[in-house]
């Protein structure tokens, strides 16, 4: 009886957070998982639904993604490498040597709820920023794979749902374009950048510089984006022109990603990331504002540099 009482007291005295799971540990386990799967991505954006179906193979931290819709698009990525192929031909590849610093997560996950999904035992977690539900994450109990991720805007509406529709925990080996094969190789550098260290709750983790281009990577422990600054303009014919914070931007959504491009007096800027729509305005507000170069400015720049 004394033993039972002691156990009961010990359980009652445990802090509530001890029951909760660590988001970074769950994500790390998911990253190390080996499997193949088919995934549906459905995103509700201000420009309508953006959907895709992809085949995924994850092996040793490398990720291979082949899109069924649209077809012929293949992405191989992992540990700083990224290669895009269209119809079997490499279109672009980059190898990046960065620190991979981890951001302090601003989100908490609960202790999880057991469930079943695709005939497997899984655990469903709620990811919250205070009282605000930001995501539901479902991890496979055995392999650790992230089977389902639903992200939400601050009004409670679903932004993107990614869920496996087929899952195989025994994937074939994965071939991957390594650093030596990449077209562009970039190393992390000390950059004298004007970009802020903290940006609307996101931490700047690292920066990179090339000829006429600098970029920084921001994360809040789950969502992330990169901000690019160039001394030239960024080509983007797709998407819509939108006015945000009195500035004009070009915005495009693809399944799971948003892109903003804008012109500044010294060149161009772009933001690429997976932010839910309610975060866009706050983040853009803290970055250099759009500023158009007029006809005379273009003429002057064209004639005299």
């Amino acid at each position, binding site marked *: 009886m004394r033993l039972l009482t002691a156990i009961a007291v010990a359980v009652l005295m445990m802090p509530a957070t001890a029951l909760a799971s660590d988001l970074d540990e769950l994500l790390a386990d998911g990253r190390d998982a080996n499997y193949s799967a088919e995934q549906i991505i459905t995103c509700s954006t201000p420009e309508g639904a953006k959907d895709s179906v992809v085949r995924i193979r994850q092996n040793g931290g490398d990720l291979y993604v082949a899109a069924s819709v649209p077809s012929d698009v293949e992405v191989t990525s992992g540990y700083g490498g990224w290669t895009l192929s269209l119809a079997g031909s490499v279109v672009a590849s980059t190898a990046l040597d960065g620190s991979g610093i981890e951001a302090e997560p601003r989100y908490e996950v609960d202790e999880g709820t057991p469930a079943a999904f695709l005939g497997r035992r899984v655990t469903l977690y709620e990811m919250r920023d205070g009282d605000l539900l930001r995501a539901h994450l479902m991890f496979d109990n055995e392999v650790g794979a992230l089977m389902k991720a639903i992200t939400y805007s601050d009004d409670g509406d679903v932004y993107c749902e990614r869920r496996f529709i087929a899952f195989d925990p025994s994937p074939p080996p994965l071939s991957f374009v390594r650093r030596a094969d990449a077209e562009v190789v970039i190393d992390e550098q000390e950059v004298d950048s004007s970009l802020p260290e903290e940006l609307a709750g996101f931490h700047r983790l690292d920066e990179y510089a090339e000829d006429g281009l600098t*970029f920084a990577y921001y994360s809040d422990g789950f969502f992330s984006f990169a901000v690019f600054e160039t001394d030239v303009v960024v080509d983007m014919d797709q998407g819509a022109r939108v006015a945000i914070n009195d500035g004009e931007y070009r915005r495009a959504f693809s399944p799971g990603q948003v892109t903003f491009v804008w012109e500044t007096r010294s060149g161009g800027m772009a933001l690429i990331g997976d932010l839910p729509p309610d975060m866009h305005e706050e983040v853009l507000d803290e970055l250099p504002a759009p500023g158009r170069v007029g006809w005379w400015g273009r003429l002057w720049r064209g004639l005299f540099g």
Partner: protein
Amino acid sequence: MRHAGENISAYLDGEMRADEVRRFLEHLAGCGRCSAEVTALQGVRSAVRSLPMIELPRGLVPEADSVPTPLRRNRGLIAAVAAAVVAAVIGIAALVTPPPESISLEDLNSRFGARVSLDPAFGPAKVVVPEIVESGR
């Protein structure tokens, strides 16, 4: 891909070294946009060169006139011709000024994708299908 931009003018003016010309032509062979830009600029330059020579209006150069005209009467004509010349120079400059250099969104996507793969959250939650590239084919 970085486009040739102002290098096009240097190429057309014959100001490039041999190795620069070789690199430029290699780029041109694989870049439809720059190739089209070179063709367009060559066309403009040819058009300007083929303009007929015109006789200066009487009164523009007083010494050339057999009968000197009062300077006061020439001022308006000189101002008009000068304005026309300035406008013509600006117009031609605008035509031959290459568009601003640019960087493609695919290049930026490539860099973002490489950096994301170092993210602890990298995995199925970060899968992106580059729709923009697909539609731009």
